[in-house]
Every structure is written in structure tokens, then in C-alpha cells.
């Protein structure tokens, strides 16, 4: 399996606080790489560095593309999603609540549609080329809605969906930009066991069917252990362990720092 993402010596300091300390790890194509650790270990900070919300103090992040590799440091803000094709979801759901489910998925295809609409000119003239492209975008949205079983609610406001469905919608919205790397920040937070099982299924589907690597932050061990191919454990901004799910479960350091002992 080829490397998709390599993080090399990543360091992020906020004033005197070192949130991430010399972190290096790799994530592979078509694999789910989980980042776990106690609260405040720096997991979300890693995501914010990867997705351009923070500029790291030190270190490199490369996204591999066939033979070449691009440095994520060069891209900030919206360009991470637009050019580098790194998508993310958020710990606290960030949908567009007053817009319909379908519209949420169309905004994710904004850049392609923008070109197709001739930066609004063709769209205003209502040309067929644009209408066809828009139909394609709707079809793509429908494809993903079918997968998460929300097609019947496509015209409802995203904010009116139940919590679990909102989580799933946020993930497929990120998938609509056709990302090469999908970063999920606690997708199972607040889900009941049935919903987390559905989430596992969705993530496995994305992993096997799409050319996408998944980076996952999660506290729900049933999700982490159930689907991760590779686990990176952080504590106080440092990597304390890296290995498969099984190795992680049995590692002494990880149990001490995070998992705890069954009583």
C-alpha cells in the first residue's frame, strides 16, 4: 500500500505551550489511520495544521500523489480543500443548518459548479451546459444520500435532521469534494451504538470503494478498534505509540496513558 500522507517532525507552539511536539507519522491510501489520546493531547491541533487552519511552528506535511509530493504547508485556508483535496469534518458539527440537505452537498461542489456556470454568466443565461453540470452535481449528491439513507430528506433543512444523521451528512458532504485525504474529528461523538455501527459501515465503504485515505480522531474505542488499520497514540503532544489496533490495545504505555485498566 502506498503512502498518502507523511507528517515529519511537526511542532506547533502557542506561546509557551507546545501543543504538538516533534510528531512524525504516515498514513496510507485506502486505510483508516486513527489518532487517539486523552483530551488535550493535541489531536485536533494536528488536524488544524493539516487542514490549513493553523500554520505549524515547525515540520513538514506531505501529500503523496503518484510520484510527486505536495507540501501542505504551502496551502492555507480554503486552498487545502480546493487544491490539495484534503477534506475535514468538525468536532462540533458544522453544517449549513438553514439550507437544505441537498444544498449542503452542492455547496461542497462549489468550485466545479462555479466554473461550469461560467462564474455565474452562463448560469444567468440559463445555458444547457450549466444545467447539465448542475444535474451531475445533483446526481452525485443523490449517490451519497442513497448510501447514508437520507434521500427522502434531501429537501429538508439540514438543521432539522437528527443528530446522528447530521454527523453522517457532514461526512458525505466532505466526500463531495472528492478528497484524497478525509480528516474526521470525532465522528462518533454523541452517537448511540446502532448509529456508531452504521458509521463504521460508512467509513469502511469509503475506505474500500473510494481512492481516499481516512484520518480519524476518536474516543469511541468500538469505532477505533473496529475499523482502524493503523493507530497513532498521542499524549501531551508527543507520539507515545504507533501500531495496529491489536498492538495498541495491548500496549502497556497506551493503557497507562489513556485506555486505563479494566477493573
Amino acid at each position, binding site marked *: 500500500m502506498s503512502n498518502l500522507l507523511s507528517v515529519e517532525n511537526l511542532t506547533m507552539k502557542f506561546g509557551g505551550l507546545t501543543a504538538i511536539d516533534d510528531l512524525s507519522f504516515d498514513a496510507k491510501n485506502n486505510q483508516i489511520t486513527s489518532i487517539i489520546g486523552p483530551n488535550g493531547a493535541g489531536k485536533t491541533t494536528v488536524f488544524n495544521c493539516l487542514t490549513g487552519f493553523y500554520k505549524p511552528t515547525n515540520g513538514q506535511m506531505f501529500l503523496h500523489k503518484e510520484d510527486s509530493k505536495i507540501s501542505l504547508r504551502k496551502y492555507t485556508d*480554503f486552498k487545502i480543500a*480546493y487544491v490539495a483535496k484534503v477534506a475535514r469534518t468538525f468536532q462540533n458539527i458544522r453544517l449549513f443548518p*438553514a*439550507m437544505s440537505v441537498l*444544498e449542503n452537498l452542492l*455547496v461542497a461542489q462549489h468550485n466545479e459548479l*462555479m466554473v461550469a456556470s461560467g*462564474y455565474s454568466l452562463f448560469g444567468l443565461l440559463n445555458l444547457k451546459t450549466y444545467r447539465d453540470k448542475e444535474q451531475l452535481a*445533483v446526481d452525485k449528491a443523490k449517490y451519497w444520500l442513497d448510501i447514508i439513507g437520507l434521500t427522502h430528506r434531501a*429537501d429538508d433543512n439540514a438543521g432539522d435532521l437528527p443528530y446522528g444523521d447530521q454527523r453522517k451528512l457532514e461526512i458525505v458532504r466532505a466526500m463531495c469534494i472528492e478528497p484524497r485525504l478525509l480528516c474526521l474529528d470525532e465522528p462518533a461523538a454523541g452517537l448511540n451504538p446502532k448509529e456508531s455501527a452504521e458509521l463504521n459501515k460508512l467509513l469502511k465503504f469509503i475506505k474500500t470503494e473510494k481512492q481516499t485515505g481516512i484520518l480519524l480522531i476518536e474516543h469511541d474505542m468500538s469505532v477505533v478498534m473496529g475499523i482502524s488499520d493503523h493507530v497513532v497514540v498521542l499524549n501531551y503532544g508527543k507520539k507515545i505509540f504507533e501500531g495496529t489496533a491489536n498492538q495498541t490495545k495491548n500496549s502497556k504505555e497506551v493503557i497507562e496513558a489513556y485506555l486505563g485498566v479494566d477493573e
Partner: protein
Amino acid sequence: MEKKDIIQSFKDSLFTGLIALALFGPIVGLRTVSKGEGLFITPQWGVVFLLVGLCILGRFLININSARRTEFKIFSILSSKFSSITENKAKHFAITGILFAAVFPFLPFTDRYFMDVAIMILTYIMLGWGLNIVVGLAGLLDLGYVAFYAVGAYSYALIATTFGWSFWICLPLAGVFAAFFGILLGFPVLRLRGDYLAIVTLGFGEIIRIILINWYEVTNGPDGITGIPRPSFFGLPFKRSPDEGETSFHLFFNLEYSTMHRIIFLYYLILVLALITNYFTLKIRKLPVGRAWEALREDEIACKSLGVNPTNTKLTAFAIGAMFGGFAGSFFATRQAFISPESFTFIESAIIVAIVVLGGMGSQTGVVLASIFLIGITEMFRDLEQYRMIAFGGAMVLIMVFKPKGILANRKPTILMHGDKK
């Protein structure tokens, strides 16, 4: 209904009366009259007590009404009137509204005064629709919209008086200038949201007005610009006696000369301009850029994470909103034939924002209803002179009490997967 409730509501309404007394006491009660050598204060406590009494009574009735199971008839009528305004009916309203607007000048009761009010309402509708793009769709609270109105008016006036170009050339130019100023304002405020954005845009509106007052060489300062050319009907001026070698409108069509011709023409001009604004907004809302505006209003961070460029998106909203403000401004200039900075004060911005917010953010029909309601009611009470602003305030309070989210607050999706379910 218990005795306790009545006592409670009575206490509450007395407290309301106290606040009313504190407000009306100095504002209404102490009147300054200039007599001979100086100003003298004449108290008018009678009016104050009348107003305070009205406040106490009104508050008491509202309190009793909310405590009782069955409502007072007047409240239930009012609230059902207000809640009967829904998006479904809005569609019928839009069609009948446009038809009515089209035949309005030829209705038997329409006179010069009605036409002037109608033109004024239409100007506000157009401004409301223009601002709706910025505030309603993109969610950028702009309290300085009048600046673009002013830029449009002054660009039109300066170009028309300096170069003598016709209205139809100056109009798009004024729009372009206003759009340019929209981008100029957009850049520094890109990172601001909400209250902070509102404050900066408010400042921008004042800056433009103060520049207009002080840049005497160009804008003629507080004296304003006079003699702005009137629009012509495709080259036919509305004049009683046209210049040598010219044909005027009434001669060309063999009509008796009447000043109403020009008024009617202006009416249709602003009607068409407003409808273009509306059509454009409805169209662009369904395009990717329109969806991006709304997405930006909902969650800017999520937009970035999906690759939507927030800078460009915000700037287009500012530019397009400003452009329509500029069009309205040049219409204003050509209608008045005289403009001065006094026409572009903060109160204008406030009225336009009020129209958009009370109409229901993002609702096109809501803007129309709010304009008619606010401007129309204020006009109806014109005989009361300065007290007519009370009618304006009263209209706002009515909307806020019965429709706190705006007259038409329902948003319809821009695209449907399953078609209209009805």
C-alpha cells in the same frame, strides 16, 4: 383568570407607565418656544399624561391578553392577519402585485401625490432588494448601504452635468462606480463579522457623506449639485417647449402637455429597475455563487473546509449589492434633479436595513410588504408632521410583536430533489 394575575399585570403596567413617563417627560413634556429675545420652555403635561396613560392601558391589555385563555378579538384578528401572510400566498401576491403596479398610474384615483409616494416606495423596494443580497443572503450586516446610494447618485449627477451624456449611459456607469466602492469597502472588512462589521460599515457610510460635504471642488459641498438632466423617453425630452430641432414627448405622440407624463415615465423606470433587481437576485440565488453566499452566512469555517473562497464570495456580494444601490441612486438623482449630502444620512441606511430585517431576511416579497407597510404608513400620517415618525416606530413594533422573524421568514430551498410537495 385569577385575581393575582390582574394585580400582577396592573403592577407591571404601572412600571411601564413609569418608563414611559421618564421618556415622554423630557421629550414631549418640555417644549422650547422661541419668543423675542430667547428660548422659553413651555410644559405640556397634558399630552404627556395622555401618552403615559395610553402606554399603561396598552401594556395592561397585552398582559391580560397573554394571561387569559381566550384572546381579545383585536389581538386574534391582528395576529391571524399577520400569520396568514405565508410564502404560498406570497406567490399570488407577487403576481397580483406586479399587475397592480403595472396599471397603477392609470387607475382613476391615482393622482400626483399617489404617484410620488409610489415612486418613493418603489425606490425603497429596490434598495431593499439590493441590500437583501448583502444582508439577507450573505449575512453581512451592512449599516452603510446609503453610501452606495450616494455614490450612484453623485456619479450620475457629475457625469451627466460634466459630459452631458444621456441617462442610459450614465446609469450603468453609476452602477459600476458603486460596485467599485462596494469592493473598496469589502476589502478592509473581510475578516469582520456581525457587530464589528456593522460598526465599520456604519463608519463607511458616514465617511462618504462627510467627503461629499467637504470635497467642495468636486461635489459642491453642502450646496449639492443642481440642474441634473432629466431622463428622456428614448431621446424625446419631457418639455413643454422643446429646443430648436428637438421633438418632445407630447408632440411626438400628439398628446396634450402634462407634467404627469414625466412622473409616469419615472414610475415605470423605477418599476423596471426594481424588477430587474428582483429577477437578478432570484436567479443568482439559485447559482453556485448564491448558494455560497448563503453558506457563508451559515458557517464561514465550514465553507473554507469545503474549498469555497470566502474572500471572492464576500466581495461579489458587496459589489453586486452596491451596484443595485448605485442604480437606485442614479434614479434618485435624475428624479430630483438636485442632490445634496443631506439626502444620504444614516437614517436612510437604517430604514433600508429595517425594511430587509422586518421583511424577513432573504425574502424578496417580504421586502415589498415591509416597504409598503413602513413607508406607506409613515406617508399616511404625513399630516401629523413630526409625529409621523411615531407611526414608523409603531409599524416596526407591530411587526416585531406579531412576526418576530420578519413578515416572511420562510426560506425556500434553491433546488429541490423531489419537486414541490403540495
